[in-house]
């Protein structure tokens, strides 16, 4: 016997060794490859943006919980760290520091803590921060520094449009895809990440690696990424097949504009996605459709952030409509 009194609690008396903290740190690990790519192409700028975003998210969460909410401080659980990382991943390198801090404030303060903290937020905090910055500072937020291989500088004068931005603008001004094609980076460079865009969306390869790690660790299930990317491919494929001169091919859509980042890291956020597999598929299809609609017919070249936020709002509804089948309900008794 021990000196301390014996413990009595209800069953079960064993627990799996998975904890929410471990889940969060798995996500962080999965983000590392994409971060390394961004370091490679954007250099210290990427480090600066990511560092500021992460630190300000942690600090803001600490300050608000400590001094305003006067509740337990939970910065150790890794969720604020992820919010910071994902926010940075959705920002262009070279964004002014104060804007990043504003974005973190919106992400943590408004989108997360004002809803009750981890587990209670309806919208993905990082995306709320990003979209807030996008609509408030449209110019700075779309000033994309061009990727330079093996970049080590802090200053980057050369800026360019993203692939999707190029196509959108070009098509609007009456150009065809064939005419634009010299400016569109090759699929390989898009896949590897030598392209233009926000910090984390560069390399589909690195993101896929991270995504596969999450799948392997069972942090996420395949349903959301597959259904989301599948829907996007199918829809853009149809348009491309009908009119290849005005609509870009599905590969371009999948490899740019944060589609992979969104599909594996943003839409799969545990808190803001449905709980059942059926619900996840519906949710992901919804995101896919809205993204494609925004990309092809809206005023923004990219649309996955908006699409995810819109579908986030439907999660409670999806949860209450797409329930697992109860054991023993709706069955025909089969007799041998």
């Amino acid at each position, binding site marked *: 016997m021990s000196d*301390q*009194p*014996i*413990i*009595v*609690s*209800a069953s079960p008396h064993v627990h799996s060794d998975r904890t929410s903290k471990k889940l969060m740190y798995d996500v962080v690990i999965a983000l590392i490859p994409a971060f390394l790519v961004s370091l490679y192409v954007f250099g210290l700028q990427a480090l600066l943006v990511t560092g500021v975003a992460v630190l300000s998210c942690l600090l803001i969460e600490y300050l608000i919980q400590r001094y305003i909410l006067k509740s337990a401080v939970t910065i150790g659980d890794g969720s604020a760290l992820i919010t910071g990382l994902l926010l940075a991943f959705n920002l262009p390198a070279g964004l002014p520091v104060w804007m990043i801090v504003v974005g973190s404030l919106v992400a943590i303060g408004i989108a997360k803590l004002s809803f009750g903290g981890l587990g209670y937020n309806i919208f993905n905090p990082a995306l709320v921060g990003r979209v807030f910055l996008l609509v408030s500072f449209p110019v700075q937020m779309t000033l994309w520094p061009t990727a330079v291989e093996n970049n080590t500088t802090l200053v980057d004068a050369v800026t360019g449009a993203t692939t999707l931005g190029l196509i959108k603008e070009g098509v609007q001004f009456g150009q065809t895809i064939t005419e634009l094609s010299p400016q569109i980076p090759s699929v390989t460079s898009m896949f590897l990440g030598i392209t233009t865009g926000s910090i984390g969306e560069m390399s589909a390869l690195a993101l896929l690696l991270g995504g596969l790690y999450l799948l392997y660790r069972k942090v996420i299930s395949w349903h959301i990424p597959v259904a989301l990317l599948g829907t996007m491919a199918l829809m853009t494929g149809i348009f491309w097949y009908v009119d290849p001169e005005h609509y870009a091919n599905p590969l371009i859509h999948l490899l740019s504009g944060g589609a992979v980042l969104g599909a594996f890291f943003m839409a799969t956020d545990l808190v803001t996605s449905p709980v059942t597999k059926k619900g996840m598929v519906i949710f992901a299809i919804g995101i896919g459709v809205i993204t494609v609609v925004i990309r092809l017919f809206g005023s923004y070249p990219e649309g996955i952030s908006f699409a995810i936020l819109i579908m986030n709002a439907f999660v409670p509804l999806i949860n209450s409509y797409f329930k697992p089948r109860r054991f023993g309900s709706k069955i025909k008794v089969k007799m041998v």
Partner: protein
Amino acid sequence: MTDSILNSVILLTGLGIVAALVLYVVSKKFYVYENPLIAEVEELLPGANCAGCGSPGCRSFAEKLVSSDDIANLFCPVGGNAVMKQVSAALGKEIAEQDPTVAVVRCQGSCEVRPKTSEYQGPRSCAISALIYSGETDCQYGCLGDGDCVVACKFDAMYMDEETGLPVVITDKCTSCGMCVTACPRGIIEMRPKHKRDLKIYVGCLNEEKGGIAKKACSVACIGCSKCLDICPKEAIVMNNNLAYIDPAYCTLCRKCVDVCPTHSIIETNFPPRKVKQEEVPVIKVEPVKPQPDA
């Protein structure tokens, strides 16, 4: 420019008129008659919606009061006799006066006198821990200490004493709605008459075990020794399953039982200090108690 202003004014006014017409017609068409007395009675009731009367809220209690012919068995514990008198006047029905009561906690098993022999891990709720086992101490009748009664109290009349780990009733705030009584899975809390100056004498224990076992679990437990029973001049004390109970209907608050109780399990409240020189009996610690023969 003028046109657009004019247009919108006309449109909005038109909309307003149509909406008003619809509302008027609907309210006339679907008008439901309701006894105006119900609203009147509801106005008299405290409006706490505590369900202490047995109805889910003051509104439904008012309906019940108006619709029943005999309301003598209906009583609003929060409003007390004063409110019931007003209700009686408004409705012209007889009511029965009731003595004001107050909640008392019949357990003195603080951390000090009732040592913990196990540690409960799980949701801090008496109802949930009571499902699993008999509690952290060896007494399976006493307070579980997780404060379901405090949560149930809608009048802020209860709090958990951090030192003793037991709930405390703030008698001035207690409306005797009885929510704590139903919330307690152990049935520790009882509504007892609030005498003048809130004088009360009651047995602060519910342990039905034999003396020795009860005493071992908690040093202030009722051991069923029947000393109080013998000394009580009014036969107000009943002994059942090794446990004394003081019936408030017969108790005259003479305090004799308090003096004889060897384990100090009978509680007196708000009495002036005794004038007669008393030998202070120190709290007995491990004095072996002879188990009394079964009652």
